[in-house]
């Protein structure tokens, strides 16, 4: 029960941005917070990744949704991102969650890597 109350205290409302511009600023703020929290993530979860690789992984997540123009969609994605970051920073996630996030590269990258491997192989 006690943990339930703690969870309710941590619950935040899903904010709705007034304009598309505000939603855009919100995502930039989220991105900045993600980048700032990388050193803390390394410290908390004892990660052994390159900082620029981690930055790239987070950046790919944002670039993936570059085409999204609708305000509500942006708000939804920003809320998901904020929640994920909050969970990671407040140690609600375990190490394996965070490692899993940084291990799974987005589709394009893995293709490129395999292509490179094949090229090396054929050479």
């Amino acid at each position, binding site marked *: 029960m006690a943990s339930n109350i703690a969870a309710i205290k941590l619950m935040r409302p899903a904010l709705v941005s007034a304009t598309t511009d505000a939603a*855009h*600023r919100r995502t*930039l*703020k989220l*991105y*900045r917070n993600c*980048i*700032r929290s990388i050193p803390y993530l390394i410290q908390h979860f004892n990660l052994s990744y390159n900082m*620029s690789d981690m*930055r790239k992984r987070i*950046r790919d997540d*944002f*670039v993936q949704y570059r085409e999204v123009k609708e305000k509500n969609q942006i708000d939804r994605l920003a809320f998901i991102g904020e929640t994920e970051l909050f969970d990671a920073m407040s140690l609600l996630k375990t190490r394996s969650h965070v490692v899993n996030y940084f291990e799974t590269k987005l589709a394009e990258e893995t293709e490129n890597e395999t292509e490179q491997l094949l090229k090396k192989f054929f050479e």
Partner: protein
Amino acid sequence: MIRSTFSAISKFAQPTFTLQASTTYGVRYFGGDARLGEKEITERVVDVVSKYDKVAGKSVSPNSTFKELGLDSLDSADILVAVEEEFGIEIPDEEADKITSCLQTIDYIKKTPTAK
């Protein structure tokens, strides 16, 4: 007696921060103006920007905007975080949204007394 000694002390004590801190560069006094010089800020900002991956090979001047250097909004957010680390400050979100060039970054740091 007390008044005369007090005036002597105040005469002696006053000019040390006001005159010297403004004229000398690079020497800091306790209780004096500890803000960084404009030249130093400019150098360090340009250094941080030119160290960024996507800027490699391009010449960075203090007047160049991030758009001219081929950087998008996420890149400029990256650079601002790097600048924050360099100067040991935190740029609040409203300010960070407005900054789109090296010159604006330098101006912001000039206004921030805690930058080091």
